[in-house]
């Protein structure tokens, strides 16, 4: 196996981990074991996985409430992630945060945030700190195209450009903000043009392949690390599930969904790896993921709940 094939296999494995994790989370949700809002990352896996592959381990990442994929790609254990969804004290945020608020300080995953756009200036702030401390550290901030209309997006980008902050803004454009299609969200279809007014570099591509995502983001990351300049990157993608578990998704047709599923980057990588003669490795990886995810669910189920003391002083 060549190094590049081995890398691709590893990235495929990560994508499958996220997909299977999310499917099991959906199942647990429908069994009432997970509460609140649950926003799945299914369909968007190549973005988190490709991005993390291009980043250094001590770079900062930060995202929205659709945060399971990034946390897992970054190295959060499936056990800590699933236990958080189950509200258990063994979860990454001790059962206090839930699905929307995954945090993993050890892996520099600085959180999942529930207020659209609110984390964008915070992300710029982490880049400000890196520059202040004269570190070669990059921040990467993920958000949906729905966030592009909100003030915090513009203030965050404006300051990042003005102060030349080492950050990559990644807009995961899945074409819908809840039930609102892109055409009713923005006056332009090309989100990356928002960078122009701030004199910021930009890029734009489809997340059809995890390796494309990795390589294109690597350019923006290098610009941040070497030149301390921000980039706005629009990555076109599609979510295969509803906005959250409570969304019946009536705003799009089953045909549109089926059409987009044909571009599934997880299947694409699988086909590539098989064609490269790695069918057996693919199957071994998939089998291993099954066990890991089953173990995570078991762990979450068996873990204890946080007591009142956890809600009180030590965590606030």
């Amino acid at each position: 196996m060549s190094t590049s094939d081995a890398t691709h296999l590893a990235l495929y494995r990560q994508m499958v981990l996220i997909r299977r994790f999310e499917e099991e989370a959906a199942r647990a949700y429908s069994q009432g074991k997970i509460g609140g809002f649950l926003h799945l990352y299914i369909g968007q896996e190549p973005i988190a996985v490709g991005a993390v592959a291009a980043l250094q381990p001590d770079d900062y990442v930060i995202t929205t409430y659709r945060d399971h994929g990034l946390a897992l790609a970054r190295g959060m254990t499936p056990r800590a992630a699933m236990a958080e969804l189950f509200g258990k004290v063994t979860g990454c945020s001790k059962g206090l945060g839930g699905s929307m608020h995954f945090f993993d300080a050890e892996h520099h995953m600085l959180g999942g945030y529930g207020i659209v756009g609110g984390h964008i200036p915070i992300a710029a702030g982490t880049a400000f700190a890196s520059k202040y401390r004269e570190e070669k550290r990059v921040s990467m901030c993920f958000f949906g195209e729905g966030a592009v209309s909100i003030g915090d997006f513009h203030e965050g980008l404006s300051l990042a450009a003005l102060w030349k902050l080492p950050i990559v803004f990644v807009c995961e454009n899945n074409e819908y903000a809840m039930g609102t299609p892109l055409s009713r969200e923005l006056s332009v279809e090309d989100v990356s043009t928002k960078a122009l007014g701030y004199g910021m570099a930009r890029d734009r591509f489809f997340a059809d392949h995890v390796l494309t995502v990795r390589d294109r983001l690597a350019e923006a990351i290098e610009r941040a690390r070497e030149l301390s300049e921000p980039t706005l990157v629009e990555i076109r993608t599609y979510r295969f599930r509803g906005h959250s578990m409570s969304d019946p998704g009536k705003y799009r047709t089953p045909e549109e969904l089926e059409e987009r599923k044909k571009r599934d980057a997880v299947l694409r990588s699988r086909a590539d790896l098989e064609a490269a003669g790695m069918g057996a490795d693919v199957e071994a990886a998939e089998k291993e993921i099954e066990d890991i995810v089953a173990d995570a669910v078991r762990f979450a189920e068996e873990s204890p709940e946080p007591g009142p003391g956890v809600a009180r002083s030590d965590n606030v």
Partner: protein
Amino acid sequence: MSVMRFREAVRAAMIEEMERDSRVYLIGEEVGHYQGAYKVSEGMLERFGEKRVIDTPITESGFTGISIGAAMVGLRPIVEYMTWNFSAVAFDQILNNAAKLRQMSGGQLHVPIVFRAPNGSAKQVGSQHSHSMEHFYAHVPGLKVLAPATPADAKGLLKAAIRDDDPVLYMESETLYGVKGEVPEDPDFVLPMGVANVAREGTDVTIVSWSRMVHVSLEAANALEKEGISAEVIDLRSLRPLDEESLVRSVHKTHRAIVAHEGWPYGGVGAEVADRIQRLAFDDLDAPILRVTTRDVPMPYNAKLEQYVIPQAPRIVEAAKKVLYRA
């Protein structure tokens, strides 16, 4: 009279007022094509068209500001936030423009606008999505704040809010949307703002609350009854203006009061109610006024912890017994 759910009563008030007055429009995220994030505005786009039922991108500050501007020159917007939590993004517009325009202009301008959304806890939606925003807004002169508990009050008060010439903030609750009740059909059924309702008569202790917590307080009152304690439940309905008379009248009878609400104990409407009662009815009181509130922490996600943090009937019962020195 007809039996309606809370969400239908809110919808009926909007539809009636939009039919009555072409200056009234509804604006917010997912209010039109999606039929409302919580289905409150279901069918309204079909009825009134895109000119008057307006879907917005995620731009709370933008569509709040646009609506304040439109109201300032004669329209009468109803602004829906997906939940009150997201109004924080528009807080500056509400605080510095909506609440100030009448005063800054020396009365030349005024802003006839309604802001409405579900408020308070839902179910396990975590710390950023569980705020009780009425406490923040009731602090502000220039704003009125309503928080109905029943479908009839929901309709009568929303109609009053839409007809009012100044900004009114109207608090709903996701957990109340399915509650049913009798609602008058008269298109001119409009309730006065600033008048509380006695939701249950009693003689031994007054429980003051609003919105969802009225139902929890009634549950507590039933439990107290079994122990021979007669609790009176006052549903404030309107937090600003605040009905002092009803509070004083009740305490004059019971000599003891507790306030039960969602939202943190530091400051807030509960503290305000306690202040008014001790100031206006000091001689009637036989015990300090107690508050039963959301505990003083950000809302936890875990289901049991969430229930521990949000006020429950047993905590109200316990407080009632304490002011009766029966604990």
